[in-house]
């Protein structure tokens, strides 16, 4: 019988387009302090392992794990980096606890996107250096290509994507973390993708404290299922008309949680681009979920996109809704953005 993993605490900081005068370390410290306070734990003695999610070139620092322990209370403790989105870090926390090597784990992911002057260049360096980069295209071009193919194959309409953007931004009005509730700009970006259908980056940090069931507080939200998967990294051989990795990740997460899509009460899914929300809902088998129960936070379109922290932002919103009694089973899903094809899913239950 697998050990059940609960969410003992959540903390966040930032969620603003810029955070001038505050370093990424200080953003992390603020979020970590809030999470530990929420969990009622002292990280110096009661957190057994720390997982941080970051990518070097995003940060402008090689071997980024060098720069994380101090502000997390993790000095001379087990710390490692997952070079991926924060939801992969959450999955890692679940594995660490289920393996018995830790009973309480902190999972962290952050964005200091405002430090990066040349974001487009960073994303471009995620493209294949031999075949794709020499073409000189902005990496987001891939989103335009994928959206076109997906619309063509599924018969969905661009207006549905526009509706997603409008609804998420409307949802964002009641979210204190949201910075982009008022964006209305239908001008083309990478046609058919429009500017208002693409999430804008924000600075911020999310920290979750996970713990084994015996230490979880009364009424805790549990992480009952996790799944993650990878599709082809190559532009030349990937599937362009569905989110295959998200589908496999969801299947694994549902299986381990013992739930069906019909059991899901609310979802926070990746909406880096509006069409991705629809594509991801399809992959998660959640097309029939009430739209007002999807990305009620406003998603990344409304809150802003936390780069590798986006998955934990989705998880945070999901956990908050479940804690508020708005449902029993919630799903959070992430995708790493262009040109990646990797996805992760977590099933939460209260």
């Amino acid at each position: 019988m697998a050990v059940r993993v609960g969410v003992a605490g959540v903390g966040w900081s930032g969620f603003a387009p810029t955070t001038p005068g505050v370093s990424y370390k200080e953003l992390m410290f603020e979020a970590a302090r809030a999470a530990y306070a929420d969990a009622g734990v002292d990280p110096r003695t009661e957190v057994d392992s720390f997982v941080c999610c970051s990518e070097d070139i995003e940060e402008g620092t090689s071997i980024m794990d060098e720069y994380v322990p101090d502000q997390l209370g993790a000095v001379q403790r087990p710390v490692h980096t997952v070079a991926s989105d924060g939801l992969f870090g959450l999955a890692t926390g679940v594995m660490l606890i289920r393996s018995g090597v830790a009973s309480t784990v902190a999972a962290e992911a952050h964005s200091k996107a405002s430090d990066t002057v040349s974001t487009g260049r960073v994303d471009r360096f995620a493209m294949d250096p031999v075949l794709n980069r020499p073409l000189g295209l902005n990496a987001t071009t891939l989103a335009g290509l994928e959206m076109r193919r997906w619309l063509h194959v599924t018969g969905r309409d661009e207006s549905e994507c526009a509706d997603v953007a409008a609804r998420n931004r409307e949802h964002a009005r009641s979210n204190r973390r949201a910075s982009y509730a008022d964006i209305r700009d239908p001008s083309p970006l990478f046609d058919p993708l429009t500017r208002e259908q693409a999430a804008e980056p924000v600075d911020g940090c999310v920290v979750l404290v996970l713990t084994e069931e015996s230490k979880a507080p009364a009424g805790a939200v549990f992480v009952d299922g996790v799944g993650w998967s990878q599709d082809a990294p190559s532009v030349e051989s990937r599937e362009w008309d569905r989110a295959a990795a998200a589908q496999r990740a969801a299947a694994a997460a549902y299986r381990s949680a013992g739930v069906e899509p019909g059991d899901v009460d609310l979802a926070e899914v990746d909406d880096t681009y509006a069409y991705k929300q629809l594509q991801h809902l399809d992959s998660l088998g959640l097309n029939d979920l009430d739209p007002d129960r999807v990305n009620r936070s406003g998603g990344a379109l409304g809150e802003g996109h936390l780069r590798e922290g986006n998955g934990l932002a989705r998880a945070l919103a999901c956990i908050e809704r479940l804690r508020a009694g708005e449902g029993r089973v919630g799903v959070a899903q992430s995708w790493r953005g262009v040109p990646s094809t990797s996805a992760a899913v977590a099933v939460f239950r209260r």
Partner: protein
Amino acid sequence: MSQRVAVVGAGMTKFVRRAQETGKELSAIAAREALASCELTLDDVDAVCLTSAPDAFDGVHRKGDYLSDGAGAWGKPYMRTYVGGGSGVFTAIQGWYTVASGLADVVLCVAEEKMSSCQPHPQAAFITIFDNIIERPLGPNLLWIFALEMQRYMQAYGLEKRDIAQVAVKNKQNAAGHPAALLGQADITVEDVLASETLAWPVQRLDVSPISDGAVAIVMASEEAARRMTDRPVWMQGVGWNLDTTYWTNRDLVYPEYVENAARMAYAMAGVDEPRKQIHVAEPYDPFDYKELHHLEGLLLFDRGKAPEAAADGVTARDGDLPCCPSGGLLGVGNPIAAAGLMKIAELFWQLRGEAGARQVPGTPERGVAQAWGDLMQVGTVVVMGNDGGPLTTATASPPSELRATALSESEFRSATGAVEQRLDTLYDWDAGEAMGAFLDGLREERILATTCVSCGRTLVPPRKFCERCFRPTDGWTEVPQTGTVETFSIVHVTWDMRPLDQPQIPAVIRLDGTSEGGFLHMLGEVAPDDVQAGMQVEAVWKPLGERAGSILDIRHFRPVDPELRRELVAVAAAEVAEPSKA
């Protein structure tokens, strides 16, 4: 209770200075050999774990995604973890928890490094490992910090270079028996090491492991699956990892506490309470010769400062009482960083099955320890592995057997189709933050500011908004004297890309008077290299007011307090920062 996990297969490429193969291809070669070694295919694999060190080597952002198909991860759960140089051993830990958690039965772990893509020298990738605000402006390189640590270790225990060099000799001789080795040399002597080019005193060229390309893979399985696959599983008995503070100049470099912490974690899990009796073979991390000694002490296999003596007595030789790096280690086999760490796990697997051929340690070893290290001399990763006991099976063949990886010369690479040249020209504008911002403002005003923590009573330079030990906000600011003590230093003779310097540079860790411990990295000037000593009193020399910009370079350098020791300026404070590649 988690399930037992075994290593059931391993494979690797040859380690070479410059591989014709791409990183994906190197990964695929190692992965295929590891699977073949236990007669599995990718269909049998539930999840793939990958590691690779800085993305800047390959010039590929999200390198994990990029390498995924080469690592066999298409359509599978796949994750990349890393902890700098500790990554290779950590990947085995990642594989362990992936299986032990019950989320997978069979896992493929792949460690890849292709350092040669980074031009003009892989050191360029390391420039961006240093603190973006207070260290990178000084133009540091990796050799500096290892030289600083090596100097501190030698000084603390009164060691001579000869005591250190014997490790390089042992490992390069051991590697002569490794078919994948880049720098195996049976006839190397201590004199050869001592005569090699001085890079950053006390580091000489043969003290250092070679830049390399390569990949290693292992297959792990749950106990039930492992029993189906092999009658010689090698068990993952214990895992441990530990990361020390970012503020490496604030701690005593003489001893790797973080390695001890990681070792204690792994030993406790493995039920090892007397490691000197219960560990029969060791693969400590040896990117530099002194590091093997440093790490053997951190692994609690020798008393502090006593590993050199044991090495001199032959204890760590392949036929000694505690064979260390029988593979030849990084110094001999090569150092494709992440791959080199997993190579140590593979070596233990082969040693504990009796398959190591010419490298096989004598007797019937039942338990071994592998360890890696990295970051800012900051992380320890440790794995304890063991067999079921009894006599080792006599191997019919000595793996690794498929020794692919095609070595290219520089001219062959330059003339080949596909030598695609791109500059990683990303631009960052970092917020120094509240604490470091105030520190830089202070420098502009010719003041050195520290934060204080009333809980632990420390005065902190570099200052931070939080106390990392007490995990609470710091309490206030204080100005500290502009004088201090040289904790350790190096005499640097080469630039970051290994070109000779006209005049040596003298980086040092300086403990400022009035601070609680440690100090920060800066340069010494107005002193002859031969006159520099650990413990020397120094003082800050500032740029004129009009030239100060709120930068660590507002301090031009530190010079001896004793006027008798001052000379004409022989080393400049700020090396010209020819930063070729932002991370």
